[in-house]
């Protein structure tokens, strides 16, 4: 069953998604992002930043601080615009960070797109033949309640361990990886199917 939702966090056979260095015949079996619940702290912070300025005049009045002289001539408008620009920048950055931190399982390999901060981008690949062990792990109240967790993939490649962080349905992910690895082992060397 193909997934059409571009924001899906667990997307089997996503439609309209490709990646750099994708080989001919290589198909994306599963696309994963961190569970949407992991965005709750960022959403709460954004809500706080959005409603914050509403309370500032009351707090200033309570503290007997009068800024009417300073905030004349459109300055208040500029400060408000500045505040909401920064708020939007924060929310947008958090969303982009979530959106591009993607894990892919193809019929040939697993790929980890890491976008850790604005100055750090890392893409790691491991072929399915190099996978030695897959370990799903669900920890904590939220992890158990919303069914998300980490999937550790032990490989024999240059990068010994892949970590799919906070992905939904870690058991199903581990099963899908092992399933594809088994299929890959059954193929003739160099075959892409």
């Amino acid at each position, binding site marked *: 069953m193909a997934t059409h939702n571009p924001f899906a966090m667990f997307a089997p056979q996503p439609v*309209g998604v490709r990646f*750099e260095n994708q080989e001919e015949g290589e198909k994306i079996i599963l696309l994963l992002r961190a569970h949407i619940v992991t965005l709750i702290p960022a959403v709460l912070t954004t809500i706080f930043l959005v409603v914050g300025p509403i309370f500032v005049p009351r707090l200033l009045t309570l503290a007997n601080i009068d800024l009417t002289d300073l905030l004349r001539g459109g300055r208040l408008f*500029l400060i408000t615009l*500045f505040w909401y620009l920064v708020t939007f920048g924060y929310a947008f*950055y958090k969303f*982009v960070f979530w959106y*591009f931190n993607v894990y892919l399982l193809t019929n040939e390999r697993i790929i980890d*797109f890491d976008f850790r901060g604005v100055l750090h981008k890392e893409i790691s690949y491991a072929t399915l033949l190099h996978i030695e062990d897959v370990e799903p792990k669900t920890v904590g109240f939220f992890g158990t309640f919303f069914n998300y967790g980490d999937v550790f993939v032990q490989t024999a490649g240059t990068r010994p361990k892949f970590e799919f962080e906070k992905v939904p349905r870690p058991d199903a992910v581990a099963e899908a990886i092992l399933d594809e690895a088994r299929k890959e082992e059954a193929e003739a060397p160099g075959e892409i199917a």
Partner: protein
Amino acid sequence: MPIDDLTNGLQVILGVKAFFVLFLIFFAIFALILFRQIQLMGRSLPTVINPYLAFVAILHLGVSLALLFVVIGVF
């Protein structure tokens, strides 16, 4: 208004302006890097919403720069 009060008021405004200008310079650099990252990640992982993300990032950068110039000129 006594001359001392006027001087103090001007100093506060200049201090606030310097803070905003400096912050907006860094913010514009942040917006530029974010735009560049979206472009690069869009090349690595093209999806249907990448053009929209890039558009929003350009808008974000544009508004940051516009606000920087307005603050330098008007504030």
